[in-house]
């Protein structure tokens, strides 16, 4: 370890310091002046953006004896996490105030979760992976339980914690098997060890299966998806937004490090597992979403189906596929943030706006937000020229490039099924009469952020080139 190692983790140090500072200030500050936490939290994220930007270089650097890595993929993912988290923080203010939940803990936990994500994305040793993952997960568990007077919220937190603990255990067991056989925690070391093998022994295969199960749990792939609808539904909308977007980006990084960098050589062994997980996710996600009347549950199942698509990119098992999966994840995070942003925005005290019926006649109440929701739904359904179209196209292209036509056909057919429930939201907004005639009150800051968030889904769809090439450089 030397001083240059610390240069690599400047953004992480900054976020940690700021989170601690807010924690300390909280003890001395009067409860009327909570706006300060909010502003400090946003400052932290913007500071992190700047630091990551300044710290960025082309190439790849390892630090702390190879346990920590900084490369383009890590920087891009972190960058998107900051942005998406900042947007969700902006959306959250009004929501939390209305429920008397506007407390510093939310932002402190959020920042710690972001720190965990950053470590997870940059992890290059199984130990760092676990460290980042647990920091992120523990913060998220608390955030889900944050609205502690709400029964649904407490129940969700309980389920998330127990099942998450189970998944952690499985992950640890898998990692210990891999460590036991290969004798190293370093991902590069694991990869080297695997490359030297003629055939893979049973313990290493078992370890791989355990690791994949944990990944599948964190991603929310069927059949390890059971927590997703309940947690999405039970948590406050702001927490749901956070889990489904920022955390998804981190888990993508987690999968890339562990599965591709560490065990990429075993692709012939894990590919079949991923195919099963992917097809099941597409199937269950898209079909069960149809029956949902709650938009948060619907979006939960929609997430499951998107995970199916992301897994398709991994299944292609080449840089093209990985970058397509990355593009998919990034754009999903952006559109997901906008979708939950609208859900958050339409809710008010005592009313969560989480039933699809609550969107009836939105066009007549506020045509701009209806239009933004339309953009988001079109993007998720994969309608050109929205970015969701390119995301699906790239993934499918990667799969077809590998000659797996049947998989592409299944994915396309099931996304046609999926189009139904996205379009239903649009239909309800534009063609049904409004039941709720309450005025929608939105601050100008939120309005601007949400509008640019949703329009980004259109803009990236019209000009996808930059992001696509960024993802390609990040992977190669």
């Amino acid at each position, binding site marked *: 370890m030397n001083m240059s190692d610390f240069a690599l983790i400047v953004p992480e140090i900054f976020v940690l310091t700021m989170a601690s500072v807010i924690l300390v200030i909280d003890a001395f500050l009067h409860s009327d002046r909570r706006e300060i936490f909010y502003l400090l939290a946003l400052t932290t994220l913007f500071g992190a953006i700047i630091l990551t930007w300044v710290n960025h270089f082309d190439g790849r650097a390892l630090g702390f004896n190879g346990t920590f890595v900084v490369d383009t993929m890590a920087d891009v993912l972190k960058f998107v996490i900051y942005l998406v988290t900042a947007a969700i923080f902006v959306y959250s203010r009004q929501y939390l105030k209305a429920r008397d939940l506007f407390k510093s803990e939310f932002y402190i936990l959020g920042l710690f979760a972001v720190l965990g994500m950053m470590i997870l994305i940059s992890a290059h040793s199984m130990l760092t992976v676990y460290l980042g993952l647990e920091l992120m997960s523990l913060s998220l568990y608390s955030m889900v339980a944050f609205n502690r007077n709400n029964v649904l919220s407490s129940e969700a937190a*309980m*389920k998330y914690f*127990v*099942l998450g603990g*189970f*998944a952690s255990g*499985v992950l640890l067991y898998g990692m210990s098997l891999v460590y036991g056989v290969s004798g190293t925690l370093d991902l590069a070391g694991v990869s080297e060890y695997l490359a030297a093998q003629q055939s893979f022994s*049973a313990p290493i*295969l*078992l370890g791989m*299966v*355990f690791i*994949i*199960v944990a990944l*599948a*749990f964190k991603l929310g792939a069927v*059949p*390890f998806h*059971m*927590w997703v*609808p*309940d947690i999405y539904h039970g948590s406050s909308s702001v927490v749901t937004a956070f889990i489904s977007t920022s955390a998804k980006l981190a888990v993508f990084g987690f999968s890339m490090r562990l599965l591709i960098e560490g065990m990429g050589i075993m692709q012939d*062994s894990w590919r*079949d*597992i991923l195919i*099963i997980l992917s097809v099941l996710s597409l199937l*269950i996600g898209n*079909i*069960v*979403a*149809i*029956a*949902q009347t709650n938009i948060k549950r619907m979006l939960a199942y929609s997430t499951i189906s998107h995970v199916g698509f992301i897994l398709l990119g991994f299944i292609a098992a080449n840089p093209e596929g990985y970058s397509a999966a990355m593009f998919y994840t990034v754009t999903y995070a952006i559109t997901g943030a906008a979708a939950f942003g609208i859900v958050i925005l339409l809710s008010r005290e005592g009313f969560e706006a989480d039933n699809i019926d609550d969107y009836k006649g939105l066009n007549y109440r506020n045509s701009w937000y209806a239009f933004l929701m339309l953009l988001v739904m079109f993007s998720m359904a994969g309608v050109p020229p929205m970015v969701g179209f390119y995301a699906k196209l790239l993934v499918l292209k990667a799969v077809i490039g590998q000659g797996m036509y049947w998989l592409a056909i299944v994915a396309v057919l099931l996304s046609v*099924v999926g189009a*139904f429930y996205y379009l239903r939201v649009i239909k309800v907004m534009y063609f049904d009469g409004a039941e709720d005639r309450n005025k929608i009150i939105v601050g100008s800051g939120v309005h601007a952020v949400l509008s640019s968030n949703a329009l980004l889904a259109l803009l990236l769809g019209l000009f996808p080139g930059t992001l696509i090439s960024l993802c390609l450089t990040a992977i190669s």
Partner: protein
Amino acid sequence: MVEKIYLAIPLLPLFGAIAAGLFGRYIGRSGAHWITILSVLGSFVLSTIVIKHIIFDHASVYNEAIYIWMISDGIRFEIGFLIDELTALMIGIVTFVSLMVHIYTIGYMRDDPGYQRFFSYIALFTFSMLMLVMSNNFLQLFFGWEAVGLASYLLIGFWHQRETAILANLKAFLINRVGDFGFLLGIAVIFAYANSLDYAEVFAKAENLSLQTINIFAGSEWNVITMICILLFIGAMGKSAQFPLHVWLPDSMEGPTPISALIHAATMVTAGIFMVARMSPLYELSETALNFILMIGSITALFMGLLGLIQYDIKRVVAYSTLSQLGYMTVALGASAYGAAIFHLMTHAFFKALLFLAAGSVIIAMHHEQDMRKMGGLKKYMPITHWTSLIGCLALIGFPLFSGFFSKDSIIGAVQYSDLSAANTAYMALLAGVFVTALYSFRMYFMVFHTRDRMDEHTREYLTETSWVVTMPLVLLAIPSIFSGFIFEPIVFGEFFSRSIHVADSHNVLNELGSTFEGIQGFVMHAFSGPVTYLAFAGVGVAYWIYVIKPQFAVDMQHRFNLIYKFMDNKYYIDHLYINVFSVAGRAIGKVLWKLGDNVVIDGFIVNGSARAMGWLSNVLRHLQTGYLYHYAFAMIAGMIALISMFVIAVNI
């Protein structure tokens, strides 16, 4: 600089159309006509500059892309202009006739509530037609082709409250669809075999294509060029109203007469003629296609002229005359006398525009009465209309020294020299056509302007010459109707089109005709040595005898040959064939497919059936989500065990 001029020529009318169409409410009636007239005037002035530049200064041919839309698989899709003598002449005709129409419309549509809309349509039409003739590639040609079709559809159905107008525009649209289908297939074959949409590139490959064959049905080999030429010509048959796709044109007279009629008759229908002339490098390679064109043209020229004999509606006489004259142009194309065809197109544009506007003038004066049986003796009430109509009729029948004389005689002379197998038949049909043309033209002329007054008292009382906005275009059109024939020598015989039109040496009939040419005087004298002029005179004489001296004769003939009369009155039953056979059969097939295919199989089984199945599955699967933590944990463990077992089985621990 020239690009800017070329670009401005079509864009000015488009601007006018948008202004009058979308903002008509704000700019008002006079605003709408000023803006469109000035924009078309602008195009006309620019066109004359282009004509001077290309034709008189012999500037080099302009063939450039203005805008590249996309490049896909190496094939360029672009907007570009090809400006040579042919284009220059066409844009001159189009903008001039269009300008006349615009001015005339002020008078004709004065009281119509859709005033601005009408100006928007005719300006849009002008834009489309200009895009068509200026194109340098098939894509833009097709765009212009369809756009004029759209404008024509809108114009014919302009009075959309009228049942007949709606029927007529539907008919025009559907019949043109048949033609356009052929046209599009032709472009598709070009695309498939030449791998380009650019005229110049396709022409360069034409020689090579003529050596290839295409297998449509098993065992029948077609030459690719013949295939392309005939398919493209089917498009021209629709647009230029050639037999048997001519049925829409007489009905199109439902539009506000005679403006839209004129648009169709003098301008739009020439698109097909223009297209074939433009594609001469292709047509020259296929004698089969040329023979086909000759046959179609001569059938149209003679038989459509015959129908003009029995019409009483003044517009319809002019409409059938148009069909017949288009047949002449088509025959000229088939005989490879492209120069003569284009020349006849030009002279015809002038005198047919004149005749249409004169008919319109009569109709205005008669308070929208169109039946010639209720006219007569208008000469004394409407002197300007009368004299200009006479000029139009003389030009139409090819009276010596009038413009039509030169163009028509060149065509007939050229066909005489053609060696194609269908040329003899065509020649006979055209000769008969000359007599028929003279007969129906002067039948109309005598019935309208001479003979005793047959209108009612009320109409007669108010019968006066129409206002200057109507008569001015008449006079302006009468001038070229007389004199435009004198410039025929360079166009028909000379090198005028040498840069635009390619004629194979073996087909060069105009050259042969030109070798006997000894000045205009000689040409006129020569005409008296052949049958053509005498036939025209005979037609006029017979018309005078039947309709002025012995009106009873026509009625007697009608009774005696009642069967033939009925056959012609029903337009040879072609409409019946289309409506009662094709259309009924088409609807029957459609109904079966709708009831069985769409309602039962697609909607019932595939669409709703799969939707129901998904809904059911969704409702079943959602029950897996019980909400119990131990169920969730169990599912995870079960999943994990299943995945592990895969490897247990695979590795055989």
